[in-house]
């Protein structure tokens, strides 16, 4: 059963990558990325996803994802990230977050600014980096997931 799940998971990853290949390239991404380059391969997520994380997320969530006690929640070993649907992850980046939450028994109530100024590809790289780093194993997304959600985002 476990093997099947793993296999299915691996297969879905491949599917997502292949979907990403077919999605329209981002012209306005900050770093020039050739159209032929496969989007969101693990190596790319690790390098470019991490670079984007360090640039746009690290100030609050810290280099190691541990956040700031009493202010910004940790995103390490996150049961939320591991169980969230990809739509939920995308929504947080597009809209930011507001309102009290509790993580590992600690309360947080600061506002997360929305990150919708980033491109679809940049957002997907950030989500996929965080989903597969800091002890997490959450959903991965493609740029087309993000562009689709942008259209329906309130």
């Amino acid at each position, binding site marked *: 059963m476990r093997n099947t799940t793993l296999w299915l998971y691996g297969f879905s990853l491949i599917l997502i990558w292949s979907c990403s290949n077919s999605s329209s390239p981002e012209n306005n991404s900050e770093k020039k990325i050739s159209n032929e380059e496969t989007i969101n391969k693990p190596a790319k997520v690790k390098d470019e996803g991490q670079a984007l994380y*360090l*640039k*746009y997320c*690290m*100030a*609050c969530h*810290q*280099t*190691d994802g*541990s*956040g*700031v*006690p*009493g*202010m*910004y929640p*940790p995103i390490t070993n996150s049961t939320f990230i591991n169980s969230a649907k990809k739509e939920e992850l995308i929504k947080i980046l597009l809209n930011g977050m*507001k309102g009290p939450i509790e993580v590992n028994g600690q*309360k947080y*109530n*600061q*506002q997360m*600014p*929305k990150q919708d*100024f980033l491109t679809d590809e940049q957002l997907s790289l950030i989500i996929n980096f965080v989903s597969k780093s800091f002890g997490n194993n959450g959903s991965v997304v493609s740029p087309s997931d993000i562009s689709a959600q942008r259209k329906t985002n309130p």
Partner: protein
Amino acid sequence: MKTTNSVSILVLISLNFILFILTGCSTKTGLRPAENNGGIVLPDGFAALIVADSLGDGRHIVVNSNGDIYVTLRNLKDGGGVVGLRDTSGDGKADIIKFFGPFSGTGIDIHNGYLYVGADTIVIRYKLIDGELVPNLNYEVIAKGFVPQNQHETKPITFDTIGNMYVTIGAPSNACQEPDRTPGTLGVDPCPLLAQYGGIWRFKADSLNQDQMAQGYRYATGIRNAVALDWNKSANSLYALQHGRDQLSQFWPELYSENEGINLPAEEFFQVKEGSDFGWPYCYFDPFQNKKVLSPEYGGNKTDQGRCADKDQPIMSFPAHIAPNDLIFYSGNNFPEKYQHGAFIAFHGSWNRAPQQQKGYLVAFVPFKGELPSGKWEIFADNFAGSDSIMSPRDSKHRPCGLAQGQDGSLYIVDSVKGKVWRIFYKQ
């Protein structure tokens, strides 16, 4: 005769015992330092004992004239937003600990027999009861109408000597951008937040139900957030320290290098006078140029002063992002002469220095003469973090957040991570 002698001896023993209770236990000689001073590093001649530990997320602290200690908590613990500590054995360690009252928060002070608590949206007071640690929990509302905030929401309080209470109302914003904290976004000009936030408001200390905007008076403005706030009785003036703005390099990467974002702007120490304007959000203090410069959100280019040239200046600056969270002016007899009338400042330590090491989990001392510092600042108590290389604030073992002076001149420090309380005294 024999009986008389026995009675005399009994009387003498009793007298000695009473004298011991009255003097021996209450003087500093009765206090025994904790092993290794409870993990902190102090100047020569000073020692520390642990009053209490694991109280919760401690914020500010006050010591009553009878020695009872009160600490605010950021979140309720055991149903209480304040914890009261009493030492009944004279060793300085709390042996009665009571959590009480529905208001958690930061501000706390004692004034005219009342315990005042600054919760995030209200200031209330409890009447202290003679002999009792826990006050009368039928509270009175002193100041209200504070809008709930998602940042800089804490309400530190202090009192002058003529019946006024001062409350910081921090700005619910980093630099008045709309939307807040986004790269390249300009600040709203003029910043509308300043009407209701970003300053210090004055209220009557003994009037009930004062609304911020109706009865409150904006005493000073242009202050992003000042958790460290104290009335200096010897100078008869208000002082505060500002948390400087965050993320210059993240929001303005073309203008500021990562290193500049880490080391700018200074944390500023203000003497706050009626009508002071310290310039937030239009200005920040650059300690390397030793001047206020125009914020990039308002067209600044790192050097232009623009409208900042005539803003009120800090009386001292501290390294960026180290988060001054409490201030007291020392007036006790226990510490040596150089500490008289000087300022102790609790720095909570940084989060906005990543990816470099986080700094500033310490208590600093600033000597004062009259209204102004008379020398450079120095580290008074250090090693709260438990390590020299803290990469994320969560790695810091303790973070000093609140300060108080005891009747005997001891300095009390409360930590926000575990709720540990140190009492520092001079050994001589």
